C-alpha cells in the first residue's frame, strides 16, 4: 500500500513544533515589542525617517556589507577557480587550509589584524624601517580596518558555494568553447561565468546576510567610529534600555533579508542557489 505523501509531515512535526516554539515565538515577541515599546504605535518605525543617526548607521551598515560582499566573492571566486584546477593532493591541501581558517575564532583574527596592521604593527614598523613611509598608514580603527577584517572572515564562506558549482561543470564545455574559436576571455565571460552564476548568487547572499549581523569586527577594528546596526541594537538593549528601537531595527534586518531572498527568488529558483536541485 502506498502511503499518502502527507504522512511525511508527521515525521517532521516534532521539529516543526520545536522551531515554532523556540524560534517563531521569540521573533513574534520582537515584532510585538517593536510596535508596543515604549508606547503602542509605529513611533519606533517613524524614527527611521526622523532620526539622522539611524539613517547614518543603516547607510554605514549597507555600504560596508556591499563592499565586503563584492570583495569576498571576487576573492572567493579566484580561490575556488584555483582549487578546481589544482591537482588532487594540492586541492585537498587547499581545502583543509580553507577549513582551518573557518575554525579560527573571530577574536583571534581581529587581534591578529591589529598586531599586523596597527599603528605600530609589523607592516607599519617594517615600512618605516625601510624608509618607505614616514607616518604610519592608518589601516586599523577605521572603516578600512573593518573591511579588511570582515573580508578576511567571509572569504571561506564565499569559496564553498562557488567551489561546489564549479565542480559540477563539465570540463568539456570549456574545451568545446575554445575549439569553436572563442578566446579565453570570451569563454570565461560567456560560458564559465554563466554556468557558475548560481554559486556566485548563493555566495553573495550568504556573505551579505552574515555581514548584516557583524558585531565584534566593526566594534574593535572600527575604533568606535564605524557603528553598524548589530552593535547599535546591542547598545539599545543593554545600556540605554530602548528596547522598542532595538526591536524595530531587528525587525528591519529580518525583513531586509527576507525581501532580498524574495527578489532573488524572482530571478532564479532558490533551491538551485542553495544546492537543492544540484546533481
Amino acid at each position, binding site marked *: 500500500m502506498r502511503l499518502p505523501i502527507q504522512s511525511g509531515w508527521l515525521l517532521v512535526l516534532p521539529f516543526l513544533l520545536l522551531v515554532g516554539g523556540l524560534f517563531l515565538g521569540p521573533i513574534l515577541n520582537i515584532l510585538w515589542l517593536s510596535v508596543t515599546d515604549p508606547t503602542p504605535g509605529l513611533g519606533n518605525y517613524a524614527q527611521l525617517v526622523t532620526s539622522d543617526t539611524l539613517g*547614518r548607521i543603516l547607510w554605514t551598515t549597507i555600504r560596508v556589507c556591499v563592499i565586503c560582499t563584492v570583495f569576498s566573492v571576487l576573492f572567493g571566486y579566484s580561490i575556488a577557480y584555483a582549487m578546481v584546477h589544482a591537482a588532487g593532493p594540492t586541492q585537498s591541501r587547499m581545502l583543509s587550509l580553507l577549513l582551518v581558517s573557518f575554525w579560527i575564532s573571530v577574536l583571534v583574527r581581529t587581534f591578529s589584524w591589529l598586531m599586523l596592521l*596597527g599603528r*605600530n604593527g609589523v607592516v607599519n614598523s617594517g615600512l618605516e624601517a625601510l624608509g618607505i613611509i614616514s607616518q604610519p598608514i592608518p589601516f586599523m580603527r577605521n572603516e578600512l580596518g573593518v573591511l579588511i577584517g570582515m573580508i578576511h572572515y567571509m572569504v571561506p564562506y564565499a569559496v564553498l558555494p562557488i567551489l561546489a558549482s564549479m565542480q559540477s561543470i563539465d570540463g568539456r564545455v570549456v574545451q568545446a568553447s575554445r575549439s569553436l574559436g572563442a578566446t579565453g576571455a570570451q569563454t570565461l565571460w560567456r560560458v564559465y561565468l554563466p554556468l557558475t552564476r548560481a554559486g556566485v548568487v548563493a555566495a553573495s547572499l550568504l556573505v551579505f546576510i552574515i555581514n548584516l549581523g557583524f558585531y565584534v569586527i566593526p566594534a574593535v577594528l572600527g575604533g568606535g567610529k564605524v*557603528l553598524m546596526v548589530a552593535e547599535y541594537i546591542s547598545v539599545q538593549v543593554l545600556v540605554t*534600555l530602548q528596547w522598542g528601537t532595538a526591536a524595530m531595527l531587528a525587525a528591519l534586518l529580518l525583513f531586509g533579508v527576507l525581501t532580498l531572498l524574495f527578489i532573488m527568488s524572482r530571478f532564479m529558483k532558490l533551491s538551485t542557489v542553495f544546492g537543492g536541485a544540484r546533481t
Partner: protein
Amino acid sequence: MHDKQFMRETLLQGAQAFQAGKMGRRSFLALCGMAGFASTSVLAGRAEAAASEIVMWNWGGQSEECHQSAIGVPFTKATGVPLKFDTSGPLQGKIKDMVDSGHVTADVCDADLFDAVALGKTGHLEPIDYSVVDKTKTVDGYALEFGISIILYGYAFMYDTQAYPNGAPTGWADFFDTAKFPGTRSLYKWANGSLEAALMADGVEKDKLYPLDIDRAIKKISAIKADSIYWGSGSEAHDMIVNGEVSMGMVWQNRGRSIETDTNGRFKLVMNQALAMPGAYIVPKGNPGGAAAQTFIATAQSVQSQLDLFTCLGMTPTNPEAIAKMAEGDQPYSITSAANMPLIALNDPTWWGENTDAAVNAFLAAIS
C-alpha cells in the same frame, strides 16, 4: 546542591502551573512522585528557603578571584553560605530581562550606582536594607534606596612620556588640545566619563558639572574626532595605550597603576580632574538568596574586605575607615585619598540614571 535546587525549581514551576490550571492533577502528582516529594513539602520548602548560596553577578576575569578572596571568604566564614559567580556582566538590559522573565538567578550585581537609579525607578530592584547595611560606610550621597557604592573606580587619562618630552599634559584641557599636544586620543565609547572630561576641558568647574550640558560636551568631543578612537572595554583601553596607538588615552583609573608598572613608567597616569565613579552593589527584585544578599553587602563594607579588594583590583574603598588605613604608597592611586580629593570630580549617579539614553545616543551619533 544544584540537583536539589533544580528539583525544587521544577516542582515549584509544576505547582504554579497546577494552580494556574495549566498542568493536569495527574501530571503534577507524577512530577511530585518522580521527585520523591509530596506537594506540601514543596510549598513548605519555599517558605523556609534559607539561602543555600549567594550568586554574585560580575564581569569575570580577575574580579571573580578578587571578590571571592576579599568578600566571599569572610562572608562564608561568618554565615556558612558559599559565594558563587555568574560572570556574564550585569548590564542594565540583562538585569531588566532577568527580572521581567521571572527567573532570577543572581543575588548581588556588581554594577554602577546609576543602574540603581534607573532600575530602581522601574521596579526591577530590591531596596537596600539599611538596618543591615551601614549608610555611613560609604561616600556621602552614594547610599541610595536601591543601591550602595562599595568601591570607586574612575575615569582618568594616561599619556606617553616619550611623546611629550617638553612638558607633560596636566588636565583634560591638554587632552583635548591636539594643537599643543599632537597625537591620537582614546575615549570611552559609551559616553560615560567622556562627556564629563569634555566639559572640564571646556572650562566647567569640576563641582558644577551636573546637570551635564550634553551639546556643549559633544561639541568639544567632535572637535577632536579626527584624532580620536574609542574603546569599549578596559583591556581595549589598555592595549590602545601600551601598543602606542594613542599618545593620550582615557582609562579606568584603577588600571592605571599596572600600566605604569608594566611599562616602567613610560606611560603616566594623570589623576588631576579624574572622575570618581561609584561602583555599586544592587539586588535584582526577587533574588533567590533573599536577605542574605544584604548581609553579603554589609560584609563587603568591612575595612579588611575593602582593603583586600583594593590590593587585588585597584578599586578605591568607599568606607572612610578603610581609606584612612591605606598604605602611604597606595594613596596616590586611591581616587578619594586626601591628596586626590581636591583634584577629582564626583559622578552624579542620579543624573546618569535618568539621562543615560539621551547621553549615550547623542554621543554615539557624534562619534559614528
